[in-house]
């Protein structure tokens, strides 16, 4: 069965610092990978996705993620975080023909001023 692991439950970084949120997946075939962000009391907004091709994908709000097949990882990065980036971040995976997304546990990001 597919699974997604986000090892960090809570991360705190200072405003302006770089950020990397980790995501590892377990699935035998080619996965389709997503990062979603959820601000407090809000819905899920798609940050970026990987389907095929270039393993470094760019998303909204200055985020990027890199697919590394050898490590089964899809880590999310941002070179310089802003206070407005404080939110919960979810990694998710789907597979060809799948009817559902499988989500990780989420990583809560806190920004220090």
């Amino acid at each position, binding site marked *: 069965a597919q699974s997604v692991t986000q090892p960090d439950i809570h991360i705190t970084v200072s405003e302006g610092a770089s950020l990397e949120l980790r995501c590892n997946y377990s699935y035998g075939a080619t996965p*389709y990978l*997503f990062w*979603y962000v959820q601000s407090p009391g*809000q*819905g*899920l*907004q*798609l940050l970026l*996705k990987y*389907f*095929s091709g270039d393993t470094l994908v760019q998303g909204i709000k200055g985020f990027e993620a890199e697919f590394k097949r050898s490590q089964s990882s899809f880590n999310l990065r941002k070179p310089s975080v802003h206070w407005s980036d404080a939110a919960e971040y*979810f990694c*998710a995976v*789907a*597979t*060809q*023909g*799948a*009817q*559902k*997304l*499988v*989500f*990780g*546990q*989420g990583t809560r990001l806190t920004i220090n001023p």
Partner: protein
Amino acid sequence: EPEVTQTPSHQVTQMGQEVILRCVPISNHLYFYWYRQILGQKVEFLVSFYNNEISEKSEIFDDQFSVERPDGSNFTLKIRSTKLEDSAMYFCASSERELGGNTIYFGEGSWLTVV
């Protein structure tokens, strides 16, 4: 940009009552989904719906739950007799085609509190 809309945004109901959560998916989408998120936990898949029938459902989606597309625009989730543990945020979502190379778009969610 087209979006998935959900109503109500928040509902409080007494245990044992029936609840209907409503969703208007993106207009040209053919696949519809419900997910839920219990407070502090991960987002969990409930059910997917295509061509007027359930295409997949999770273990959570038991006989207490049902989905319906009563007309060309709405997609509803009904919980027949709510339990305390049904308290959660329920997300509706839709996609143009099946997942795996296609993006699923989520609504803002409906908070359900069962008391």
